[in-house]
């Protein structure tokens, strides 16, 4: 025995070797999926005795599209690597858009801040404090011009994330800029979230009364169907619903319920299902239970195909294809030990790709704390790029298809989701479920349950209730601050615009908008005209609100100047 070995060991570890043994022999305490499904130790052919491949599964690109909407999935085209961007002034956001595109982002994606979603101009008394904090505010055509400056709108794919009734104005603003710059509307590619119905569950109820939500949401959908044939006019947002704490089958059921509100309205307006359904898309969450999320997506694809064909009589296969973007689950991330979030997002991104996503946003690791810095944003993009170029998961369509486990879970989620949809039908439909606040109560109950699961360690989260450590003192990749000057400047510019624009021209345009709204016409053309005449978000939305019997200003402070 060499006495020198003792000197070489600098810091002898104080280990409780009994604890170590426990860790060595440890097994999972739970055999349930995230949404609560009891799981067997292994799934075998015996679990799938009556698998009818042609009818229920089928190849990718074949009804009911369980395995994917395209025959060759990512071999044909990668998903769009589309990181959400929204910060400060339109100029600030523009800069970050360019940064990410320069580093390999393949889709543009900008998100509205709370003031814009509420339908407020940057100079509104309630907006002043919060302009640009979590997104961008586009008050006038000038803001949209700044945001899109020098970007060839007929070449890029731009996802405009405005969800509330203000999406109608966003669409008008985007179209106005495109037309002013001579772009052919039929060449514009991209999407607008445009799902005001769901947005009442993210706050914003003053901006999203149910009837106005359906009216304006459908106006955008109808307008795009006729004038922007390559544009996806809605991304029905199941993601935000999942963020409330609900389960996978609930996410699909409630999302589909909301989707049907719009579909029913468009059909009522006389559109044929195959005329518009091919451009109908969804925003889906990918949470941390990889297999459950893949199964959820497969179930949603099968359910959508059958819903379109059997309930709505669609004939065009493209109408039956569940097209979706994924936003990895923000609520699965925690501020403790923040770099762990990069790993969580990687797993969630993996689930999205294994699920066959069309467009992906990976959260930056600082999602539960603040807006992303350039570094954090880039890290999220790199996560997607590693998935795409290194892991090989893109080589084969629906690689998990045929797994006894995943097929079983797909069936289970579909079954439960259909049960919930039936429950909503029995309540009188989704609108009734919303009006009676039945949906609110589902969200509230599930949210409390999720917290209790954490408190009791029924669900484990590293850094929160296991393997905790002292709170960090700094955010690893820095903190993104929104330059105060951006907001101040934007407010000044809005005020200047309102002082210097041609009010006569604007008044005429507002009058046309009011008339169209009163005659229950599609208001988007009039909004385009008013936008080109320098009408602002608050003014356009407010005018339509008044016609429908609501206050001009959602916060009930400002009166209409017209």
């Amino acid at each position, binding site marked *: 025995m060499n006495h020198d070995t003792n000197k070489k060991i600098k810091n002898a570890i104080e280990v409780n070797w009994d604890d170590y043994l426990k860790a060595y022999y440890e097994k999972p305490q739970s055999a349930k999926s995230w949404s609560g499904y009891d799981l067997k130790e292994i799934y075998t052919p015996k679990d799938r005795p009556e698998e009818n491949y042609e009818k229920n599964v089928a190849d990718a690109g074949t009804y009911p599209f369980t395995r994917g909407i395209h025959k060759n999935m990512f071999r044909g085209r990668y998903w769009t690597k589309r990181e959400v961007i929204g910060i400060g002034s339109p100029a600030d956001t523009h800069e970050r858009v360019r940064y990410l595109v320069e580093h390999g982002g393949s889709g543009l994606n900008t998100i509205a801040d709370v003031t814009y979603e509420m339908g407020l101009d940057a100079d509104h008394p309630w907006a002043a404090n919060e302009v640009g904090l979590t997104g961008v505010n586009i008050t006038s055509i000038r803001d949209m011009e700044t945001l899109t400056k020098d970007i060839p709108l007929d070449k890029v794919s731009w996802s405009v994330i405005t969800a509330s009734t203000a999406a109608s104005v966003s669409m008008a603003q985007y179209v106005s800029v495109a037309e002013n710059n001579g772009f052919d509307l039929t060449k514009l590619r991209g999407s607008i979230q445009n799902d005001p119905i769901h947005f009442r569950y993210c*706050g914003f109820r003053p901006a999203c009364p149910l009837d106005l939500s359906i009216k304006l949401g459908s106006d955008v959908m109808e307008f795009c169907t006729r004038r922007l044939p390559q544009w996806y006019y809605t991304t029905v947002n199941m993601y935000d619903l999942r963020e409330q704490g609900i389960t996978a089958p609930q996410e699909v059921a409630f999302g589909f319920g909301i989707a049907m509100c719009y579909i029913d309205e468009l059909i009522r307006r006389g559109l044929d299902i195959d005329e518009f359904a091919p451009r109908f898309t969804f925003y889906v969450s990918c949470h941390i239970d990889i297999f459950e999320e893949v199964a959820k997506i497969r179930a949603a694809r099968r359910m959508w195909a059958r819903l379109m064909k059997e309930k709505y009589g669609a004939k065009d296969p493209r109408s039956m294809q569940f097209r979706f973007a994924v936003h990895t689950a923000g609520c699965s991330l925690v501020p403790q030990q923040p770099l762990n979030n990069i790993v969580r997002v990687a797993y969630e991104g993996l689930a999205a790709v294994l699920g066959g996503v069309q467009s992906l946003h990976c959260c930056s690791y600082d999602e539960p704390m603040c807006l992303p810095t350039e570094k954090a944003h880039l890290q999220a993009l790199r996560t997607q790029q590693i998935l795409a170029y290194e892991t090989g998961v893109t080589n084969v369509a629906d690689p998990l298809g045929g797994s006894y486990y995943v097929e079983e879970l797909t069936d289970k989620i579909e079954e439960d989701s259909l049960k919930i949809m039936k429950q909503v039908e029995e309540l009188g439909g989704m609108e009734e479920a919303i009006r009676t606040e039945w949906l609110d109560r589902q969200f509230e109950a599930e949210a409390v349950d999720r917290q209790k699961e954490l408190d009791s360690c029924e669900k484990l989260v590293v850094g929160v209730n296991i393997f905790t450590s002292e709170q960090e003192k700094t955010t690893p990749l820095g903190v993104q601050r929104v330059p105060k000057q951006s907001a101040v400047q934007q407010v000044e510019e809005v005020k200047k615009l309102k002082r210097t624009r041609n009010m006569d021209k604007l008044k005429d345009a507002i009058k046309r908008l009011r008339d169209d709204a009163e005659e229950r016409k599609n208001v988007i053309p009039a909004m385009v005209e008013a936008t080109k005449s320098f009408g602002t978000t608050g003014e356009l939305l407010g005018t339509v609100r008044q016609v429908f019997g609501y206050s001009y200003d959602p916060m009930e402070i400002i009166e209409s100047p017209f």
Partner: protein
Amino acid sequence: MDKERKIKILITKVGLDGHDRGAKVVSSLFKEAGMEVIYLGMYQTPEAIIKAAVDEDVDVIGVSYLSGEHLIFTPKIVEEMKKNNLDDVLLIAGGTFPVEDIPVMKEMGIDEVFGAGSLTEPIIQYIHEHVREKR
């Protein structure tokens, strides 16, 4: 008659922020912990919050921030509290903020911060230990 005093806590959001999942969850759990929760909901101004705190004679004000507005509204809320002599009322905050901002918020006047990913028991324990006796 010996009675354990009930703790009254006001839960509120401020400004335009519409993320209320956390505020509703803590309200429910505080109720289960025996507290009386006065829930103000969204779109409150600092003035309205403090007015309610005064009229309801609350022991604790809990503010939920999830849209980056924490450094903007905290000084205003603290100022209103001072104006109304609410020095003996506990002020706690929850939501999303960079860890660097936590000492800043405390400097501004917040007594403790419980961000996203907090477990319920430490919050309740904190309140019990720090709620002031107003005798």
